[in-house]
């Protein structure tokens, strides 16, 4: 130690007051630990332990999916290990289309029944379940003038606006698939690619009339139909990559 055992007054004067006012270092006590803390720590240990067990994948260096032991290594995300069901493009399009239909429901009504004389029905309509090309064109560009649906005449002032043009191809495809498969309708799904194809081919700025649309009445836009009624891809083939 550089400090002398017999300090003189000069040393003490030089000593900074911060050092002088310090408290001595204290030895710790031995207070008891509260019981609730012990229970809490046991709880932590139990929660921690539950991270082991199944999730270790059998301590194998070859297993990286922590759900191997529980469900055989399937997709654990919400929707379950049968992720194929949640990911089925038709089911997904129906779900999405139902919310997208809010745009249409204002006129065509929530039940797809329309209003007599003003807004034609979608339920059971040959315009909906007929050729996909005509349906896409109507929603993409709008429709004006008199039109006959299910034998009834309709003529809305101003006609139907090109609502579909404001949607993405995917959203429009979802809504159309929904419309074609609700209220008793059953028809093939319409995909994003089909909508895109029509958009690329047809750039008109005015609404269609019934006469203009005649050539497309029964025309379907070519393209893969991944799922749903009239699917072109076999379900087994679709499921194969997922099962790998």
């Amino acid at each position, binding site marked *: *130690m*550089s*400090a*002398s*055992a*017999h*300090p003189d007054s000069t*040393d*003490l004067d030089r*000593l*900074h*007051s*911060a*050092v*002088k*006012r*310090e*408290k001595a*270092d*204290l*030895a*710790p*006590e*031995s*207070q*008891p*630990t*509260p019981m609730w*803390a012990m229970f*809490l*720590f046991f709880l*932590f*240990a139990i*929660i*921690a*332990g539950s*991270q*082991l067990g199944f*999730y*270790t*994948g059998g*301590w*194998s*260096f*070859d*297993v*990286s*999916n*922590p759900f*191997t032991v529980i469900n055989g290594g399937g997709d*654990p*995300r*919400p*929707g379950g290990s049968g992720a194929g069901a*949640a*990911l089925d493009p038709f089911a*997904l399009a129906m*779900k*999405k289309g139902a919310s997208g239909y809010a745009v249409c429901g204002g006129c065509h009504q929530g039940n797809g029944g329309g209003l007599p004389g003003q807004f034609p029905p979608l339920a059971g309509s040959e315009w909906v379940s007929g050729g996909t090309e005509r349906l896409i064109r109507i929603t993409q560009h709008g429709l004006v003038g008199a039109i006959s649906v299910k034998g009834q005449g309709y003529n809305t002032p101003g006609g139907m606006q090109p609502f579909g043009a404001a949607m993405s191809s*995917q959203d429009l495809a979802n809504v159309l698939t929904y419309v074609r498969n609700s209220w008793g309708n059953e028809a093939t799904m319409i995909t994003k690619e089909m909508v895109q194809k029509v958009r690329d081919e047809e750039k008109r700025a005015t609404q269609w009339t019934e006469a203009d649309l005649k050539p497309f009445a029964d025309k379907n836009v070519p393209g893969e139909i991944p799922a749903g009624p009239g699917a072109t891809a076999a379900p087994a083939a679709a499921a194969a990559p997922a099962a790998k």
Partner: protein
Amino acid sequence: MQTTPSTPDTDLQADNLRRAAIDKSVKVPVLFLFTNGAFWLMLSTILGVLAAIKLVEPEFLGNCQYISYGRLQPAHINALVYGWGVQAALGVMLWIMARRSGQELKSGKSLLLVAAIFWNITITFGILAVVMGKSTSIEWLEMPKFVWPILLGCFLCYAWPIVRMFGRAFRPEGFMVSTWYILGACFWFPWIFITANVALHCLPGLGALGAGIDAWYIHGVIMLFFVPVGVGAAYYFIPKITGQPIASAQLASAGFWTLAILGGWTGMQKYMGGPLPAWMTSIGAATGVLLLIPVGLVGLNHHLTTLGKHSAAASSPTLRFVFFGALFYPVSGVVLALNSAFWTGASLQFTQSWYAFQMVSVYGFFSMCVFGAIYYIVPRLSGCEWLSVRLIRNHFWFSVYGVGTIVIMSLVAGWQQGADLNDPEHWDQTFMNHVVNSRAYVVSRAVAWALISFSNLMFLIHLLLMVLGLGRRSSAPTLLHHDHDETALPNGAHA
């Protein structure tokens, strides 16, 4: 004049002189480390503001490559961790160990100074290299390869005298409570640092395991370096200032050993469900939750110690910072457990909540404890008292609000991001939508870093004035608050 040397009064005077001599022996390296650390912290907080703004508005300040988010964010973190964190920690470790062991720093003072200078030069080049685009892209190790042997050497220059002081100390009862954390930090940092750098820079073809090792490194540095230094400082200063002995030596011992055993097992849960062997992430997750036990033991001990003494935090700057830091230790433990456990981690994985953990432990807990230590240590080394109560108050409150905002906002943002990503409704959405949705949280992060930046400007100015010897010449400590209730300690008792 006293003639008998064994009277209590003379003993006290000799003790005072000895402590003053110890302070004098470590003055130069400790003040150098603190001052440079404060400069790096200032830089880091400014970079934090810029990086957060660039994340929301990439065109901010022009389209220059040197200030893109991808370079600013690593520069911000590296300045925070190596420039401020490790540097300030070394200063606190050296001072506490010297004081607690009663050993002066006998030789090698110039070596310590040289090591500190090299540390700063190396980091300057390292961070410049990151900004110039030479980053290694390894989180928390972005600085180029050449820096790590130099940093390691500099660290060991400090670790060696600290360990030697421990070895030569007379060990009274309770000596270990704070010193074993500091001793542990001396050994654990080199171990983690060498392992991670050798594995990541020298072993070829690690593949996905490299990412796992990096995550392990980050958690290791936090749990086995920043946490021990912060806890060691809290264990030293709380009884020193309140005059209340640590409540339980047994809890202290259990808290240390559980941390020592568990600290090095966590980290890889960051890649749960990823291409690592499942048991690695599983062990990381289990340990991340299990670490609540050492965290809880220390928190409980501090709680029992300070029960009924909380009013002292109103007047002593040191105690106020250390209290707040000690309070944030359990919070960081809970955030780690939430990130780690599979049920919550499935949502929080790869989201901003991991940033919440890094910031709550490095700034909320570690840095606040170290600020407290600096407010205690610097007056003893510089021979003058802190100038301004207002500067200290600003430093405290802006730091508290800033780091609180970062932690809460990042956690909420993380939960939202994770829940959205996992929601089947969102699976056909582009990823950009999630990025856009989290913008509001990043804006709040920028604001929070601006608050912290302001608080550290106060701190830096104050510290520089103290180091230059321009502090108050007075025998009374700078207290935040005049005592007006009888539960508070007598005026001169704490500083």
